[in-house]
């Protein structure tokens, strides 16, 4: 196997089956009940708790932790799911050190927060294995279209279904889940959890999922507006930013999101080719996920190169530590100048940069990194926004709970302007838009009923 590791170029099967299994096992295994009890005991049950304020979905964290501590994890799960129906995935992928755990008063006290994310997973895991806990309200006779079965769309659909509306989700890909299914490192959500969670969520009933229905191809917004009482757009960001660098079209230069998606969908990791010298350009979670997984697939040298200072990286400290402890090198203040090679990439040329006071970058000395594979991870953008909808910074402009410039059309998640591009933010936006859609539809119904 040593030979396979050292093979130059982008090749599959660098590792033994056992190594693949070890490398892609659950990165943060679930707490056992004893661990959960010990962790829960540390919560101070703060007044107007800062962790709740820091949570985009405002989960009542002290309450659910107290419910765990008192031996009622299912009650804890309900507390979580009432606010965040994808609380199971959020427990796995939330950058908690920037959110709830970062706000935990134990950070101030000891620098060691209550393990809120792990406790949330402990509570929610138990209920995902059970029948769906929520029931639908009385049928309203209203139909709502949801575009995209990612976190925003699923969250909106669930809340709408719970209110008694009939929901149809139009999903461009073969599976539901969005980034939960296609865009997250596989060691964060093992054993098919993303699909289990979707199945569990949909089992509330009243939600029809139609796959391989892409907005602008199989479906159009005007048609949805005509057929449904309301439309929620949650299709995420389908486009990927280009490097705009010489040689970007050479072989083995590709988008990190594609690599991550293929890895998540791979039946056998040994069939996935990976370079011996991998370079990832970018500074966010996607860059880290691509870099770490390259390393875990057996790449010998993996380097993340980010054009600005480390403090401006989108990836959280925890993610950065995970990368470096996995053997990934993080190089900051360097931007790509050219991709060299003869057909395939062989080297990437960079220039060191300095962050200037006005926000611009000043480039200095050049250097080259050996690379037989190069991943772009410099952000995604909205592709194919519907005609006539107002945009803001390239995303769908929204006011309040996701209202777009078009009457009867709401938007949320990454495709909507504002908010962080996080799973938990998408869940919150989907939920809040659903509540607003419900309020509008029911007001309209009441107005019609009392009309002349």
């Amino acid at each position, binding site marked *: 196997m040593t030979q396979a590791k050292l093979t130059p170029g982008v090749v599959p099967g660098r590792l033994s089956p056992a190594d693949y299994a070890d490398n892609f096992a659950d990165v943060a295994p679930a707490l056992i009940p004893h661990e959960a*009890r*010990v962790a829960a*005991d540390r919560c*101070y*049950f*703060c*007044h*107007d*708790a*800062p962790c709740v304020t820091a949570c985009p979905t405002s989960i009542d964290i002290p309450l659910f932790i107290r419910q765990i501590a008192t031996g009622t994890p299912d009650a804890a799960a309900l507390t979580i799911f009432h606010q965040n129906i994808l609380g199971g995935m959020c427990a796995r992928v939330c950058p908690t050190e920037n959110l709830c755990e970062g706000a935990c*008063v*134990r950070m*101030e*006290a000891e620098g060691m927060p209550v393990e809120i994310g792990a406790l949330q997973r402990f509570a929610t895991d138990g209920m995902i294995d059970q029948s769906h806990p929520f029931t639908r309200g009385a049928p309203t006779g209203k139909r709502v279209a949801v575009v995209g079965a990612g976190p925003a769309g699923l969250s909106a659909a669930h809340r709408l279904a719970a209110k008694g509306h009939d929901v149809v989700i139009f999903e461009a890909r073969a599976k539901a889940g969005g980034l939960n299914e296609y865009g997250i490192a596989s060691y964060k959500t093992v054993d098919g959890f993303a699909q289990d969670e979707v199945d569990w969520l949909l089992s509330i009933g009243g939600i029809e999922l139609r796959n391989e229905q892409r907005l602008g191809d199989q479906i159009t917004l005007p048609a949805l507006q005509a057929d449904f009482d309301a439309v929620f757009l949650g299709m995420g960001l389908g486009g990927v930013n280009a490097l705009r660098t010489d040689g970007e079209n050479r072989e083995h230069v590709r988008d990190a999101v594609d690599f991550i998606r293929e890895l998540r969908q791979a039946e056998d990791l040994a069939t996935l080719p990976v370079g011996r010298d991998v370079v990832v350009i970018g500074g966010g979670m996607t860059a880290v996920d691509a870099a770490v997984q390259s390393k875990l697939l057996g790449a010998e040298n993996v380097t993340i190169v980010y054009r600005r200072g480390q403090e401006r990286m989108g990836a959280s400290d925890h993610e950065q530590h995970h990368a470096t402890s996995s053997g990934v090198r993080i190089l900051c203040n360097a931007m790509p100048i050219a991709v060299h090679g003869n057909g395939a990439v062989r080297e990437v040329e960079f220039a060191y940069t300095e962050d200037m006071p006005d926000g611009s970058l000043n480039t200095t000395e050049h250097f080259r990194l050996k690379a037989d594979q190069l991943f772009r991870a410099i952000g995604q953008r909205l592709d194919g926004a519907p005609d006539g909808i107002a945009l803001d910074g390239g995303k769908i402009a929204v006011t309040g709970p996701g209202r777009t410039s078009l009457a009867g059309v709401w938007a949320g998640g990454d495709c909507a302007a504002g908010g962080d591009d996080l799973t938990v933010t998408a869940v919150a936006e989907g939920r809040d838009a659903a509540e607003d859609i419900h309020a509008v539809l029911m007001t309209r119904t009441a107005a019609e009923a009392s009309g002349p």
Partner: protein
Amino acid sequence: MADLRSNFVGIKSPNPFWLASAPPTDKEYNVRRAFQAGWGGVVWKTLGAEGPPVVNVNGPRYGVVYGADRRVLGINNIELITDRPLEVNLREIKQVKRDYPDRALVISLMVPCDEDSWRTILKQIEDTEADGVELNFGCPHGMSERGMGSAVGQVPEYIEMVTRWVKQYSRMPCIVKLTPNITDVRKPAEAAKRGGADAVSLINTINSITSVDLDLFAPEPTIDGKGAHGGYCGPAVKPIALNMVAEIARSAETRGLPISGIGGVTTWRDAAEFMALGAGNVQVCTAAMTYGFKVVQEMISGLRDYLDSHEMELSDLIGRAVPNVTDWNQLNLNYVTKAVIDQDACIKCGRCYAACEDTSHQAIAMKPGRVFEVIEEECVACNLCLDVCPVENCITMRELAPGETDKRTGQPRGDYANWTTHPNNPMARAAE
């Protein structure tokens, strides 16, 4: 370095830490390990009269109350006196005492409430060379149903009578162990003193049901679906024990009667508190049952460090706080304090705010940025905020200087004045 050697009613031990009569002191093996670990003395688990020994249940004997992180706060037990033959216990006591002549070895006794039984047992134990006897008038479970233990301890006349017999038929120092399952602990202490007791020890365990199994609907520990009340001990009972020790220490009738303090002693600090309230030594059980015999080493070093840092001898400590235990009506009503929150130490949990706002006097303001500030105009100095604050010394109580105006009442702090002279006290008026 402070000398911890103890002389309690003539019984000498290298330190004032004894193991109480309880499961840990039931047999030679345990007692030898205790002495090896450094315990100053042991009260051997209670012996009964000769004959077939008592039997214990064969299901669980203990129920527990936990604090955070499954820390044991209290244990209740339904174990009876020793269930081993009298002659075995006596042989072992003699052997252990021979090997550890410098340690205190006291025998706990519980026999039927008649003169013959007591005369007989005292004769039987004479040969062991033990240092003293402790009369178990305290056990609240099992034995009390048979007219012994707390059944005796709840009747002062019986205490006095049995104590007299013991002093009549034995030359050994006699310690009378008191039950807390009584309204006024001074009465049995007075009875023991009248009977000639050399000392009292307290408290024995408290009648208790620690928990109820919510599937079986039975108290714990549960024996085949049923439970009986047990005796509660451990850190949770310490406040009750401290008060009872203090009551005896400051009562005119019992003042000066030596006291062996028992009840939740877990650390050197607990021991020091008992001694400050008048205990000449302390007895420990639950801490050893929870953590093993080694805990005595922390008790020894801790008490020694405390005495050294305060330049005190052990004898200076004993009873030192007794003069400051008083009745409520003697408390200075013109002593005014106000809570002060150290903003640098505050971790912004808001528990002080929740406690004060919901359950007290609305005297803490929550300001933007989760800044919590005391509103002195409302603060009655109850100190609940301090009690619920998770950070030690983050909230403190500041004493108003004499003459300083209390913003709540608008009155300057006055000189000492208590309820007995307060204008609102009808009795005070009546006395005029």
